């Protein structure tokens, strides 16, 4: 029972990360109907931006201020990179068949992975300790680490912020409008291109934040680090019903918890198999996912 609780808590911590990244996939799919396969590389760039930021700033000792600054910087830079990727890679293809954008997305992903290996080096770098992890307290024999609490807290804040933007602001309403009737939104005075850019920026900021949180917990970063988590987050988005925000969050949490049960109960070899199995089962038996509304053409 103690073990079970510990695995669940660890799983929720990783699941929150999946949820943050999955939101980026699902938001872009919701508004453009395309899978942004470069999203995992924006996550990777978030970690590297934070790494270099800490280096330039000469962060020596761990402190909450360093942690906050690193998180904000990574979020901002990831947002900027997401904006640029959309502007230069996808926007010119807006009117082309979706397959073109998909192939471009894979191309951008490869460009970042291998460009990253050239610029940052292929060897893993050890991520600076922005904040010292410690055992805070115990609940029923399960240890609660500071970093896990931070992951829960920051993810929850980010999700609340996102919820506020989507449901309480004109920009959020416009995002939902463009997602449902892009032909009608200009009649409201909405500039669809701006709203699409905004969607990429928000999704990328979430990915950048997720990357820093993960890198503090597992302080090894390399240019290929996005592919594994990107795959899992993508599966989480499909599992929850791609295009659905709540689906992405619940899908992410469930996948994270599921993976930790596998690890915890001695089947860690199959950890990566879980996401693929889920993906295959979902596509076979419930292609709309848990919360997906209608079946659009999926690519």
């Amino acid at each position, binding site marked *: 029972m103690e073990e079970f609780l510990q695995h669940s808590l660890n799983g929720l911590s990783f699941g929150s990360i999946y949820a943050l990244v999955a939101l980026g996939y699902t938001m872009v799919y919701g508004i453009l109907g395309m899978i942004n396969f470069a999203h995992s590389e924006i996550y990777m760039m978030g970690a590297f931006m934070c790494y270099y930021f800490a280096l330039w700033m000469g962060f020596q000792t761990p402190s909450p201020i360093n942690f906050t600054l690193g998180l904000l910087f990574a979020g901002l830079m990831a947002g900027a990179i997401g904006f640029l990727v959309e502007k230069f890679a996808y926007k010119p293809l807006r009117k082309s068949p979706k397959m073109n954008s998909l192939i471009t997305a894979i191309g951008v992903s490869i460009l970042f992975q291998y460009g990253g290996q050239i610029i940052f080096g292929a060897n893993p770098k050890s991520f600076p300790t922005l904040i010292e992890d410690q055992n805070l307290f115990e609940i029923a024999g399960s240890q609660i680490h500071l970093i896990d609490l931070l992951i829960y807290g920051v993810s929850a804040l980010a999700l609340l912020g996102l919820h506020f933007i989507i449901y309480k602001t*004109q920009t959020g*309403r*416009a995002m*939902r*409008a463009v997602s*449902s*009737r892009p*032909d*009608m*939104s*200009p*009649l*409201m*005075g*909405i*500039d669809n291109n701006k709203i699409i850019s905004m969607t990429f920026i928000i999704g990328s900021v979430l990915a950048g934040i997720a990357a820093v949180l993960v890198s503090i917990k597992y302080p090894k970063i390399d240019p290929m680090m996005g592919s594994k988590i990107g795959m899992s987050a993508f599966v989480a988005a499909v599992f929850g019903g791609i295009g659905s925000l709540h689906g992405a969050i619940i899908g992410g949490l469930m996948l994270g918890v599921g993976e930790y049960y596998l690890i915890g109960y001695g089947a860690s070899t199959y950890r990566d198999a879980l996401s693929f199995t889920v993906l295959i089962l979902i596509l076979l038996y419930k292609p709309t996912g848990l919360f997906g509304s209608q079946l659009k053409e999926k690519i």
Partner: protein
Amino acid sequence: MKSSIIVKDLHVNYGLITAVRGISFSFSSGEITCLIGCNGAGKSTTLKALAGLLPHSGQIIFDSKNMQVLSTPERLKQGIALCPEGRGIFPNLTVTENLQLGAYSKKTKLSDLLDRQFDMFPRLAERRQQQGGTLSGGEQQMLAIARALMSEPKMLMLDEPSLGLAPIIIEQIFQKFEDLRKTGLGILLIEQNASLALEISSSAYVLETGEIILHGTGAELLKDSRVQQSYLS
């Protein structure tokens, strides 16, 4: 001050097919102007071009300003709103959210604008938290009109507002148009229901295969034998 939109030699093509062949007409604030014609005459195409949704050539002059180079959102800011064919409401947004989006380009307080529309359309006030897609056809049409009014336009273009509605609802909606006209709004109305449209229009044009074949006051066209034969029988 009276505003007017003057359209000169408007051409619209869909690829190789010409839908509107060089039409010229005008409409003004405080007046209802209608375009009548059969299916495929180019009525909706004309409105979409005026709203900037379709590429077009020719001049669209709004109070001596040329609209042709402006995008749809920019034209809306100038005060030209389109209430589109098929209503085009956002089905998964609530009534209130649909209305709030109508004022997307507005910096002023939304609550005053909202209250004004809810006063004008009490049915919408009752259903403000309901999703747009769950409304009846008549309510959706009211929502579409109210949403277009949220941008406080000077000119409102209405594309087939009576389509698919019960006669009693049509009467209510047309009464609203008359009320709006009295407040100084300019209305350009497209209708297949020609008799109804001509009755409330001070100026009317008949469109056939992309060209204007007749122009006159609403009363004149109601009596015109060609109009009676083709559109009123």
